[in-house]
Every structure is written in structure tokens, then in C-alpha cells.
């Protein structure tokens, strides 16, 4: 019984933190935010060179064969700095391919996805929040997909989409294929832009190796978003602490006032212990089939809900500055708005937790 990280896992986070602090400063992120492009290709190729694009892809296809928990640890660090790369959609899509793809599909795509030369993403949601396989209407006829998906992350840079279709199955669609139209939805989180993708008889190939791939990939995604939110919220608390230690009013550091100190301590209390919650969710989703789905949903609903509340308080703690575009807080805040909504809001996931418990 050991509920802690391995040395390799600690090193993974340390390495990534080193890279991110060097290559993705807050000012670099702000440039991306200002420009609204949502993607830093040099960051992505840097990460890919270090092997991050293929972390969860089996070694035989050129990846590192790591676990969901390892991916979650990466997401925590990416969340801390709001790193503008297509990692989340890419690993969700590769998870689906690894689990549901035929040997031929895997050999065709996984090596280039593992190397980061090709980018994949995942198209699940329909309309304003229909994330569940049983809600999907996108049709497939004669291998051609028609219909529309919303909130598809990084669809503008993706080469390959894993698309959820009516009946709960998944199909592969190349974005270059005829009949695929990508439209920017102007998402709030400019580090991970989202798109609507229309399919008009686009060529596809089904992922039908069996199993409930759409569900297991979604559950893994919940754990990853919980991790991302934990990272983003932890950084926001650090920013609040830093500000309270330097900002002076009434002749003293504001962090010396108990009103401020206690407010920050309460935020930390709401976030810091939940590191263990996302670890558990990410571990359980892979290793504890009887509890995995519920653990991931509980972690995602709890952490994103608490994190976004914390983020609002951090804005207020920064006073007028906190309300500006210039203040770094807004970027983390918006990262959390994505984490909260993607794959289901806390209320939707809590319904699911209650149902899964048999209440």
C-alpha cells in the first residue's frame, strides 16, 4: 500500500516544470492570449521532443507507455502555467486509439502522434453540453459522417479527430478530408481554444476494437481535467500569497491582516488537500474498475467547483488590479472555466456520482 508518487513521476513533473518556466513565461502566455491564436507551436515541438506527445502511447508505437496518473501529473503542471498546447485533446484522442483502434489504425497513426508530428483531438460534445454517448446524434452512413460537434479543443491545428457518433461509437476523421469544416467558437480560455466542427459526408473509419471506449476515455478525461484545475488553482493561490506579501496598505503588508490571511488560508484549505483526490481519481480510473468512473467524476466536480470559487476570491484579493486584463490571474481563471465545463459541469457530474452510487 503506497499512496505516493514514484521517483520517476516526481522527476516527470520536475522536468516539465523546468521546461515550462523557461519556455512559457506569463508574458509569453499573455502574447498568446492577446493574439488569440491559442497555440504555441514551438512549445509543442519542444514538449514533443521530450516525449510528452506520446506519454500514454505504447512503446511499440514509439510512445512511453505510461499511465493515466502520469498524464494527470503532466496536466497539473500544464494547468499551473496555462500552457497553450493541444495536449489535452491529443492524449484523449490517443487514449481512444490505443483502446479502440485496430492494429492497422494504430500502426498508421500512433507513431506520428507519439512523435508529436501529427496532432489529434477529440470531438464529443454536441449542442450546448451533450457529452454523453447516449446523447450523440452525429450519423455515419456508408463510412461517411454527417452532423456537428461543438467544443472540440484545438481542432484548428489537429490532423486527426476522434468523433463520437450516434450509438455511442467513435470514428476517426482526418481534418483535411472533404466535408470537414472547422469554426472557431471564441472560447473563454485562450490557452485552449474550442471549435465547432461540421461534418458533411466526411470520410471516416470506425474505432471498433470493442469495449466502451467512449466512456472509459471520458472518465480518464475527467481525471485529467481535475488535475489541470488543481494545478491552475494552486498557482492562483501562489499569486494571492505573493501579492499579500508585497502589497501594502494602512502601512503594512496586507497579508498581515487576518481578514486577508484567513481568506487565503481558507482558499488553500479548499484546494491543497484535493491533490490526493485527483491522484486517486487518475489511479482508480485505470486500476479500480469498480470505483474508477465515480472517483473521476467526484474529483472533477469537486476540484473544478472549489477551484473556480477560489479563483473568484483571488481576483478580489488583488483589488482593482485583479479585474484587469493585465493581471495574470485572469488567465488561470479562464483555464478553470474550461476545466469546469468540459465533459460536464459539476452539477451534471454530481448527478452521475449519485446514480453510480445507487442512491
Amino acid at each position, binding site marked *: *500500500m*503506497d*499512496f*505516493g*508518487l*514514484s521517483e520517476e513521476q516526481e522527476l516527470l513533473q520536475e522536468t516539465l516544470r523546468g521546461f515550462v518556466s523557461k519556455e512559457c513565461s506569463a508574458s509569453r502566455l499573455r502574447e498568446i492570449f492577446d493574439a488569440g491564436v491559442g497555440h504555441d507551436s514551438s512549445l509543442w515541438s519542444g514538449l514533443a521532443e521530450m516525449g510528452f506527445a506520446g506519454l500514454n502511447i505504447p512503446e511499440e508505437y514509439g510512445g512511453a507507455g505510461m499511465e493515466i*496518473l502520469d498524464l494527470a501529473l503532466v496536466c497539473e503542471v500544464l494547468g499551473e502555467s496555462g500552457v497553450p498546447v493541444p495536449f489535452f485533446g491529443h492524449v484523449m484522442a490517443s487514449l481512444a486509439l490505443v483502446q479502440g483502434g485496430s492494429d492497422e489504425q494504430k500502426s498508421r497513426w500512433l507513431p506520428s502522434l507519439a512523435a508529436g508530428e501529427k496532432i489529434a483531438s477529440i470531438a464529443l460534445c454536441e449542442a450546448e453540453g451533450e457529452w454523453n454517448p447516449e446523447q450523440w446524434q452525429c450519423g455515419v452512413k456508408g463510412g461517411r459522417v454527417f452532423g456537428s460537434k461543438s467544443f472540440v479543443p484545438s481542432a484548428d491545428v489537429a490532423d486527426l479527430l476522434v468523433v463520437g457518433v450516434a450509438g455511442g461509437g467513435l470514428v476517426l476523421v482526418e481534418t483535411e478530408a472533404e466535408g470537414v469544416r472547422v469554426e472557431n467558437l471564441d472560447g473563454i480560455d485562450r490557452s485552449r481554444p474550442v471549435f465547432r466542427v461540421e461534418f458533411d459526408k466526411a470520410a471516416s473509419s470506425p474505432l471498433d476494437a470493442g469495449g466502451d471506449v467512449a466512456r472509459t476515455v471520458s472518465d480518464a478525461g475527467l481525471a485529467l481535467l481535475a488535475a489541470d484545475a488543481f494545478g491552475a488553482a494552486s498557482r492562483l*493561490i501562489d499569486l494571492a*500569497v505573493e501579492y*499579500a*506579501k508585497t502589497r501594502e496598505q494602512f502601512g*503594512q*503588508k496586507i*497579508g*498581515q491582516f*487576518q481578514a*486577508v*490571511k*484567513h481568506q*487565503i*488560508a*481558507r482558499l*488553500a*484549505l479548499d484546494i*491543497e*488537500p*484535493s*491533490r*490526493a*483526490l485527483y*491522484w*486517486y481519481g487518475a*489511479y482508480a480510473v485505470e*486500476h*479500480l474498475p469498480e470505483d474508477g468512473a465515480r*472517483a473521476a467524476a*467526484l474529483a472533477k*466536480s*469537486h476540484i473544478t*467547483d*472549489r477551484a473556480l470559487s477560489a479563483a473568484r476570491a483571488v481576483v478580489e484579493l488583488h483589488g482593482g488590479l485583479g479585474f484587469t486584463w493585465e493581471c495574470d490571474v485572469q488567465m488561470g481563471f479562464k483555464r478553470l472555466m474550461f476545466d469546469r465545463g468540459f465533459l460536464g459541469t459539476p*452539477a451534471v457530474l*454530481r*448527478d452521475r*456520482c*449519485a446514480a453510480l452510487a445507487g*442512491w
Partner: protein
Amino acid sequence: MDLEYTEKYQAYRDEVRLFLKGWPLAGDAADRPDAAGVFRKRGIEAGFVCRNVPTEYGGAGQEPDALKDAIVRQEFYAAGAPGDLTSQGAGMLVPTLLEFGTEAQKKRFIPKALADEERWCQGYSEPGSGSDLASLQCRATLDGDDYVLSGQKIWTSNARQADWMFGLFRTDPSASKHAGISYLLVDMKTPGVEVRPLKEMTGGMEFNEIFFNDARVPAENIVGKPGEGWAVSRATLVHERNLIANPNMMRDTFNDLLDLARGVEIDGCPALEDRSLRQRLVEIEGYVRTGETSSMLQFTAGVRGEPLKAMRPMMMGKLYSTDTMQMIQKCAYDLLGAGGMLAPTSEDVAGWGRNVTATGWVEAYIFSMGPSIAGGASNIQLNIIGERGYGLPRDMRPPSS
């Protein structure tokens, strides 16, 4: 990360379970008033109870192994069997003496505390010294071979049942606030020690105030050196906070809340089918599960000898658990409806908030505020988290301190 137990520990768990077949005691022995004590003694001999206390002080003297500790705790808890006492004597004094006591003190006091033959209370708070405990004024003046005690302690749980008290007294009024304090062991039968009960808002009478009128305590009853009492008491306080931050209790109480929600109705349907209640329950469970997993994380950090890696969650443990318990109790109270106007029975009060009758929940609703105050009130915990956990500047203190 691996949540499975290895074969060695599975085997140990089997050993513990086999031993626990002996509880309850067989036949008529089950009804003996000292049944728990008899079983506990067997547990010590078998190596499962008081595992980490050396045999010469009445413990089982086993090699330290936190995983085995955890297995024993889980299995004894599941069987409802009497394991390690969580009294103030066994839970707080014993670890403190093991760390700071003289050989004579360990031999004299530890065995009887473990066997529950001598009961202990804690003499810390005073009428003028609550959160600012180090301002305490109770005096202990050295006179020959004795300390002479004068002053008052308050909020002392179980003082009327206690044979002994461990407490903090000012031995050097000229030294600075923290440096003038010593940790003394006081026989409650000493002439000049007077205990008066205080009634709590639940109707219970656990609390007492204690008056010292020139009570004489042998100087050898000091733990640590004169003036070291503050440091010694910090160690005790850690043990107290660990006793309060108990994730099993959170989960059990949450399960009780679910049972309550199955049994009462909202608009003619079981409350558990009500969407807003289900949302609230899952929200609370988010905290419960966080408390459980965070305590696993802290536990592993301890087993690996890297407790500093879990410093922040450790600091937060007490407040996290008392806040969560309050959330659970508030939700339960909302389900009681008009029943929430009833007073708890004396059995409810004696059950310390663990009775799952309607009035038991009323008692629990009130009782849940107690742990938030005891062992360092929540506002103090927030100071500790802010200052020591996150390096925020300390509060302004008067220049004299």
C-alpha cells in the same frame, strides 16, 4: 502508487482477523464490565494493541511499521473491538512521555495509562488564556522538593473522573512568555486541588474548572526541564490534533447521513431521491473523499520518512476534518425538520453525537462545534496555515512579547 497490500501484509491482516474472532468474548465473559480491558490485554500480548510502546512500559514492543498500524486500526475498527485507547492518557500523555519523560516517569505512568487503570485529563486552558495559551498565569513555585500550585484551569474535559492531570504552569514569571512555562504531572487527589463541573450547551457535563490552592506536587513530576513546557506541550498537541482529524469518523458519519436521507421524506418521496439533496450529498462527499485520500497521502509520506512533503495537508488536517463534520451535521439537521426543535436525551448526550436517533442528530449538530474549538480553534488553525504553511506575515503582536 499501489493501493494493493503485498502478500506479507495480507498475511498480517489475516492474523489480525483471526485474533479478532475472539471479540466479543465468548459466553458469559462477554457481559463482564471489564470485557474491553480483558480483550485489550490479550491484544497487547498478541502484539496488536499498543504496538509501538516498549514491553517494559506495558506495550507490545513491536517493530515500528505504519502499514501494520493501519491494518490493525482498520480491522479493529471494522470489528468494533477495543484496540488502542484514544483517551487523553493513552492518546496524548503516553506519546509525550515516550518522547520527553524520564525512565522513572515512563515506568510509573505509561503502563497504568495504557491499561486504563489511571485516567488523565489535560490542564491547558485558563479563563484568561485560550487561543493565547502561552499567556497562562497558573503558577508553580518551587519550594524545597515541591512545586506549589496556585491559579485556575478551565474547559477541562473529564477532570472529575481523572486520577491525574498533565498541565502547563508558569514556573518562571520573569522569563519571556513561552520560556517561563513547565509541564507538570498532578495527582488529582492532592490537597488543594478542587474540581467544579461546568455544564455544556448540550446539557452534558464533561467540562470542569479546576482550582489550585497551594497544592503541592513533587518536583520530580516535571516532564522535560523547567521552562521547556511549551515545547513538550506542542508535541502533545500534535497528538491531540491527530486524534481529532480522523477520516474514518468522517466516512462513518457520512454513511449515517445517507441512512438518515433514506429514512426521511421530502414531498412524499425518500429524501435521497430529491435532486437538490443528492447534489448536496455528493458535494459533501467530495470533502469526505478528499479527507480520506489526503490522509493516505500523508500516511505514505510518513512511511517513506518524507513527512515534509505532506506538511501543508498535515497542517490542514484538523480544520479540514472539523469543517467537514460540521457540513455533514448541518445537512442532517436540515433533514430533521420540526424534530430539530427537540432536546437530545441524556443517552444522546452521553453518546457524544454518535447516536443515530432523531434527537441524537440534534446532539451531534450541536456537538460538532466542539472539536472546532478544542485543540486550537479554527481561527488559530487559519493563522497557522497562513503563516507557517504559506509564509504570510505574522499578526501584529504587542511589543512586550
